[in-house]
């Protein structure tokens, strides 16, 4: 009789039973929680293992899978500067099972994170050029990492514009940093759908900000040497991108970050597929040319 030895065991002997699912999984501690609005909180998270923390290299626009044991796992964009390595910041809106539970956690709690996953905003390739960043609502969250990255290397870039629209002033995120961004010579414009007492800024759609910027007679500065990064709800993409194209930006230089349901982040669960494209592997950041070639993408 032939008792087969278990070839599976030898093939994957490096990861025997009782170990983490894969090398991408790290235990991390929530070191601080700051409420930002009624529904969003900023979480500072530190990977426990020092070596893993130092080795946590990511690019702006990438995301992690965050797992709260027994509660859930979901993708979140890393919102901190890549130079901070495994001391990351996440800004999370409480919308569902996991995120509402997270909003009740305090500092000191251990969670699991895997990653980094996905594509990034190619800020390296934008060196020497202008960048215009357009964020709607929670879209400012994945945008913060490229903003921080641009700030840290401010001198290497041309003109930087940030246009940010929120539903109302009380829903604006990272307000405490806006002044600092401006100090770094970033043209930050903020607009809200609906005003609230105390609000002195403009009211309207983010497209209005862009239209105004385009109308300032600075059209000449737009063109092949301008990059755009667009993040926000799906309804926002098309009008904005159309305006940008109209203004002469090339499709390959407009980058959007798409959102899909993800259960693995590793190209295995199919949840985020758009056709054969995995939002988690081939995205979440796509250039606009690719997006137009994806059915049902936006």
């Amino acid at each position, binding site marked *: 009789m032939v*008792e087969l030895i278990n070839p599976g065991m030898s093939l994957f002997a490096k990861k025997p039973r009782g170990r983490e699912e894969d090398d991408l999984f790290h235990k991390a501690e929530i070191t601080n929680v700051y409420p930002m609005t009624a529904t969003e909180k900023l979480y500072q998270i530190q990977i426990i293992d020092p070596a893993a923390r130092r080795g946590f290299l990511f690019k702006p626009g990438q995301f992690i899978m965050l797992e709260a044991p027994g509660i859930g796992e979901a993708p979140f964009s890393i919102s901190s500067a890549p130079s901070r390595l495994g001391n990351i910041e996440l800004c999370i809106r409480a919308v569902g099972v996991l995120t509402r539970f997270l909003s009740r956690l305090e500092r000191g709690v251990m969670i699991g994170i895997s990653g980094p996953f996905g594509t990034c905003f190619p800020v390296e390739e934008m060196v020497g050029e202008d960048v215009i960043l357009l964020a709607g609502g929670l879209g400012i969250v994945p945008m913060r990492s490229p903003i921080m990255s641009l700030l840290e290397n401010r001198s290497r870039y041309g003109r930087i514009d940030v246009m940010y629209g929120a539903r109302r002033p009380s829903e604006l995120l990272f307000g405490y940093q806006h002044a600092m961004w401006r100090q770094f010579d970033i043209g930050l414009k903020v607009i809200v759908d609906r005003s609230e007492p105390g609000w002195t800024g403009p009211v309207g759609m983010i497209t209005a900000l862009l239209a105004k910027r385009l109308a300032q007679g600075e059209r000449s500065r737009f063109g092949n040497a301008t990059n755009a990064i667009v993040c926000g709800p799906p309804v926002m993409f098309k009008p904005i991108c159309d305006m940008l194209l109209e203004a002469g930006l090339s499709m390959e230089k407009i980058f959007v970050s798409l959102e899909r349901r993800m259960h693995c982040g590793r190209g295995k669960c199919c*949840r985020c597929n758009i056709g054969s494209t995995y939002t988690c592997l081939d995205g979440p950041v796509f250039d606009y040319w690719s997006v137009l070639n994806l059915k*049902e993408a936006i």
Partner: protein
Amino acid sequence: MIFKVLAAGELEKFFELLVVNKLIGPVERGPAVDGRLLFDFAEVAEIAELRLDFTQTVHSAKKYLLPYLEETGVFVMEGSDWEKRVDYGAHQPLVLFGLHACDINALNKLDKVLLAEPYPNRFYGAKRAAMFIIGHSCRPTPACFCRSMGADSVRHGCDLFLTPLGDDYFVEIMSSRAFHIMESLDLREPTRRDHKRFQEQAKHRGNLLTAEVDATDLTKILDMEFDSTVWNEWGRRCLSCGTCAQVCPTCYCYGLEEVVALDLAKGAKIRQLYSCNLLDFAEVAGGYNFRPESRTRLKYRYYHKHRGFVEAFEEPLCVGCGRCGTNCLAGITVPEVIASVRRGEVENG
């Protein structure tokens, strides 16, 4: 590949050699009302239970790699901290005895995506590596269109492949493991007559493959027909029940759920095989659904299999086993759906 012939009585000996391991094979589940015999894969202890003359199992063998429900992690809680335990579930080698060509090809397709770098699925990988697979030539059903999908024969993905030649078996040995195990059996070199019989047998089988899918330029056609109205009719019929994906040997989509034990001392992460036909498959936070209508979900299943996968791996994510159509209560079959897209209309059914 080495060709041999196994003498009639030797199959039982071969079975006995292997049955000390956990052995899976086709077994009969009983007749359906229309007289069709129903088969499925199950653990087998005696050769008499093994129905190598089976037509096709209702469910595929993928469950041994991708269980319908799988615990992919257990958390033992300690205050704010916890310990995570992971078990890939490959505790013992598994012998799969009697897989048809389509099902072996299905595993090969799954390998392409699930073992792909940069993030191979270790749960799948560990179980896949712990398998010993014995293929067996099939008895095609009227629903089989494997030839159209290029999945009617096997070149790799199993350890050996058996084709009955009268009482003897023509054996294609594809792994050294298989070669060593078979050493103790009465194997002989095939004669020219054996080769001829083998070819005749293959031809006979080929003649039985009647269903067809015209896959010429299919990716392009699907691209052009993205807005085709045929999907409305298929969508109207579809029950969004997920049966097609559950029985399909190549569907691998899954969902995750985390649960906490009643005593709050443990948590677990559970993976459930899912289906892109299910209502909430493409729902994202906030309730927005990228594919809220059954027609868009059904269409997505076809686009993933016959367009997207082809783009990525140069072959469709379908082996033409016909299971999805046979088991779909609404009678939605791949040949009909694809023909309708080509034609631009749905025939009444």
